[in-house]
């Protein structure tokens, strides 16, 4: 499916979300309230199992700290149709949490541990949510914009 067609189909399916054409792929943005209470898993399952989409390959999962809020960013691709899309969810800055995708895409288990470690996002339903790269007693989350380490930080 081409990007334009994909954009139309996504608009039809998710009229509440904000949809725009990004530089490469259609981008679907949800507010956290829209996907709270387990609805996020439904959205992802729809994208994964609908015959027109079949987004079965999560090739990148990450997070961006926008100081006032976090954006979770999921890059999805269909290995059958070779089309891709970007799924984003806006999380609040005080207590960021979102449903874990580790049972939909198995690779998410490790990616989510990394995001938990470096951004402090809590993934509900994750089987083994603990720090993966830093030591267990590390204080703070380094990739946050307000993180400061006066001793080790390299600033240019």
């Amino acid at each position, binding site marked *: 499916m081409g990007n334009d067609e994909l954009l139309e189909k996504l608009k039809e399916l998710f009229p509440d979300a904000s949809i725009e054409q990004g530089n490469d792929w259609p981008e679907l943005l949800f507010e956290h309230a829209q996907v709270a209470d387990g609805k996020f898993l439904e959205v992802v399952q729809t994208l994964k199992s609908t015959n027109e989409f079949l987004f079965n390959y999560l090739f990148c999962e990450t997070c*961006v700290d926008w100081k006032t809020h976090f954006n979770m*960013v999921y890059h999805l691709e269909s*290995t059958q149709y070779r089309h891709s899309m970007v799924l984003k969810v806006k999380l609040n800055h005080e207590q960021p949490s979102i449903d874990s995708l580790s049972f939909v895409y*198995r690779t998410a288990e490790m990616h989510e541990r990394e995001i938990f470690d470096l951004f402090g996002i809590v993934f509900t339903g994750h089987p083994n949510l603990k720090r993966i*790269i830093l030591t267990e007693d590390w204080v703070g989350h380094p*990739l946050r914009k307000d993180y400061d380490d006066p001793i080790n930080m390299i600033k*240019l």
Partner: protein
Amino acid sequence: MIEEITTAKEGEMVINIGPQHPSTHGVLHLLITLDGETIKKLEPNLGYIHRSIEKMCESLSYRQFIYSTSRMDYLSAHINNHACAMAVEKAMEIEVPERAEYIRVILDELTRIASHQLWWGAMAMDLGALSPFFYAFREREVITDIMEETCGARLTMNYMVPGGVMTDIHPNFVKHVKDFIVQFKSKIDEYDTLVTDNIIFQNRMKNVGLLSAEDAISYGTSGPTARGSGVSCDIRKTHPYSLYSKLQFEEVIETGCDSFSRYLVRVKEMKQSVKIIEQLIDNIPEGDFVAKTKAVIKLPKGEFYSRAETARGELGVYIVSEGGTTPYRIKFRSPGFSNLSALNHMVKGYKIGDLVAIMGTLDLVIPDIDR
């Protein structure tokens, strides 16, 4: 860790492999729960060489950040640099001169061969065969010499810049690459007679570490790891970049799903890379080796993603720009990290003796995982 050991069930044993273990090829720590000799669970413990490259990149300019990526997957340094340069070029809409594209692809493929050769030698060494390592380094040495002559470095080349390559190729480059191809073609059959056809080697590699195509996709694996499970995922074919859409080569796919299939994919890929270099080496066009760019690069506001096929799989570079001279956020989707996530699934139920035969075929490079 202590908690893990005390929570082991009766009759099970937790052992540590690494961080200082020859078969992990770096500082990777694996916590393995065993029942007798059977692996029940494997948990990787990462971060021993975490440098937070993503955070460092936030204070580096778009010319500087490319150099830090040579230190991620150091065996695919050229391809990492290429992916980053492409992301900047895409955002700035820079047209790369054709000569630069030719040089880039030739160097990418040489890197791929060198990386696979090191893996091939190390894989055989992990399984107890010492001599293949020296055979592999015999050819790899020629490639590193070519790199040294043209790029000035043997490992972390830092040769690609936004818009092209840093300097023109060395006058001897074409001759030496051709010499290498002749040498490589006369020796590649030794690889098969020495290791591939060896019955002891085959017995250890076949039917271990099974990874079905469905699981390969779900675990986000890419590169030879996924192609050994019959998944077509070569970015050079599925999302062609640079010159790859014009070149004649095959995507190597094996459907055995086991360690031996992943082994075969890499050995056959070396031959395909030589095929690509042969198509390019005689036709390097004259002209500029780098496009004219501004001294200070400012990316427009927005998000940019570029993908490249490294020796280990798909490398994604995700840049979020706020319009300044440094990126707001950079994420490197490294192939090793995703491939490692499948390891627990792949080793479950196999004997501890098979662990190395399975882990070796993932071709893990630890700085690529830790970043």
